[in-house]
């Protein structure tokens, strides 16, 4: 490091003049995201979860990659037959290929999970942001609203709502998405509200207000980027939960119906014959559990990596 710096430049660290200089607290340029990535890279839980999630998404998008069998081709003659040929999980009560049905079932589960989470994410973002940013009576009103929705037993409400929304003809896809979207946004909204309140009181927000910044700039440039991390994590956890709830609703007969293929339907149907033939129940249930767990673990790992307090 040269000794010819002027007084005002005295504090410029070694990084400024000699990038590899061994002196002074010069850190390599790093962004928050790259810090988080550095942490994630050595976290085996993250890798397990990420591989599982990628696998499930690929399964949902291109089921043909995993099986050449037709999941809706069923023959009663093969009822509850053991594994054979490509049907490595055997056959169910209707004589359908359990492996093929499990693979194809991923599509509905993942699609419903994603859409419902997107919808509840949007609701919670708007409500949480408004409550946290404006405070006062807006907050009081919205916070009571959140409390009321939280007070409703989710599953009971979902059963009632999903049944009311669907007419007997449709597949039940849209009603399930709407039901989940409308009932599951409360956690996200609360998290968003509290992180917006925390971010709002930061000095840099005051600094921007002092410059004359308007509401939109304060909200979207200063508060949202600093409040979003915990929210995004909650969404990944919610995604897992939504997939599980969809299966539950379908199992209870108020979710997907008819010719649809989904883990919930398979579990529901197989449950009647679980004593004679456990395989048609065990396999989709296992896939469901693994998928839900993978999303939740991913969310957990990302939260830890983005939380500077854990460094």
């Amino acid at each position, binding site marked *: 490091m040269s000794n010819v710096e002027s007084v005002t430049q005295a504090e410029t660290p070694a990084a400024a003049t000699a990038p590899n200089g061994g002196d002074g607290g010069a850190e390599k340029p*790093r962004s*928050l995201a790259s810090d988080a990535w550095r942490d994630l890279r050595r976290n085996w839980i993250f890798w397990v979860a990420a591989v599982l999630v990628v696998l499930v998404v690929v399964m949902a998008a291109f089921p043909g990659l995993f099986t050449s069998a037709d999941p809706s081709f069923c023959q009663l003659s093969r009822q509850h037959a053991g594994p054979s040929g490509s049907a490595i999980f055997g056959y169910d009560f209707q004589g359908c290929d359990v492996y093929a049905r499990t693979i194809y079932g991923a599509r509905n589960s993942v699609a419903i999970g994603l859409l419902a989470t997107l919808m509840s994410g949007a609701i919670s973002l708007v409500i949480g942001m408004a409550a946290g940013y404006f405070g006062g009576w807006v907050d009081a009103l919205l916070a009571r609203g959140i409390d009321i929705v939280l007070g409703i037993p989710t599953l009971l409400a979902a059963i009632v709502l999903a049944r009311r929304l669907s007419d007997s003809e449709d597949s039940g896809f849209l009603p399930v998405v709407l039901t989940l979207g409308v009932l599951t946004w409360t956690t996200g909204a609360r998290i968003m509200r509290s992180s917006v309140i925390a971010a709002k009181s930061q000095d840099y927000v005051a600094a921007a207000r002092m410059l004359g910044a308007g509401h939109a700039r304060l909200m979207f440039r200063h508060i949202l980027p600093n409040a979003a991390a915990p929210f995004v994590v909650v969404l990944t956890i919610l995604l897992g939960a939504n997939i599980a709830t969809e299966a539950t609703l379908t199992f209870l007969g108020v979710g997907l119906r008819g010719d649809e293929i989904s883990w919930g339907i398979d579990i529901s149907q197989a449950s009647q014959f679980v004593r004679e033939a456990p395989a048609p129940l065990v396999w989709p249930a296992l896939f469901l559990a693994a998928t839900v767990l993978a999303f939740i673990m991913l969310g957990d790992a990302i939260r830890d990596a983005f939380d500077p307090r854990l460094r």
Partner: protein
Amino acid sequence: MSRPSADAEVVLETRGLVKHFPITRGIVFKTKVGAVRAVDGIDLQLRRGETLGVVGESGCGKSTLAKLLVGLEKPTAGSINVRGQDMPRLSGAALRRARRNIQMVMQDPYTSLNPRMTVGDIIGEPFDIHPEVAPRGERKRRVQELLDLVGLNPEHINRYPHQFSGGQRQRIGIARALALRPEIIVCDEPVSALDVSIQAQVINLLESLQDELGLSYIFIAHDLSVVRHIADRVAVMYLGKIVEIGTEDQIYDSPTHPYTQALLSAVPVPDPTLRGQRDQIVLEGDVPSPANPPSGCRFRTRCWKAQEICAEQEPALTAREKSAHPSACHFAEERNVVHAVE
């Protein structure tokens, strides 16, 4: 540093500035049960090129005063006059324009910069909000000039705040405050979060910027040594009021208010030969709550000179028989507490 003359133009003046924070009960249906009198009637003047130091202990209202001056809080009463305009009464475009004249450097360099914005975006933000100040094409150059001005490398425009040390972050904060070419900068404890060896760098920078750009500073701090070093005039606050105001010499060498004397005598001087040689006044008790200040003189509950009149009549902040400069004490009298006494 040349001292600005007493007849230089007044750039900032407050009259009867008051800020009361209501104490409320309930969330939806609020009822007011009292008020914290954070700032309770402040009159002060700031001249061009001058540094006015504001000192006091925590809870004296100095930080609220800073927020009032830069418009982060709305005053309960009183006026803040900047270049003939009463700031609290402005709104919309006029307020936005007026804000350009008075900016602030904040205390904590770690929380005052948005961690998700680059240094270029942080220092350039004033230009986004006030596009008339710098045409779009010129902004990058202006930001780099500002970085250079505060002693940072202009090439670091794309770095993030966490890549800088505390002292460098404070320089970034100063550059942001300078972007709109204000006449007045309110410095709220600008060095108290920094390490000792870094403080001098920032103090020297603030001084050289003042000389170069003709800035006026309101310098708020609890460190009386730092204020003596940088200020031309000093105001001492206690429980929301100014108790004594005068030139740096008047306040430090011949303080007349008992609180100023106690405050100064409590500051340790880094010279062991003075140990036990200085007149030390140790105050009893704590500062009363600003929600329920004592009647009359607010300092009387801790003052060794207090008489009946102090509880009945609030002393005005004026020059007195034994105080050449304004002092809010019925019994104002000089006492040398800073230097060794024989």
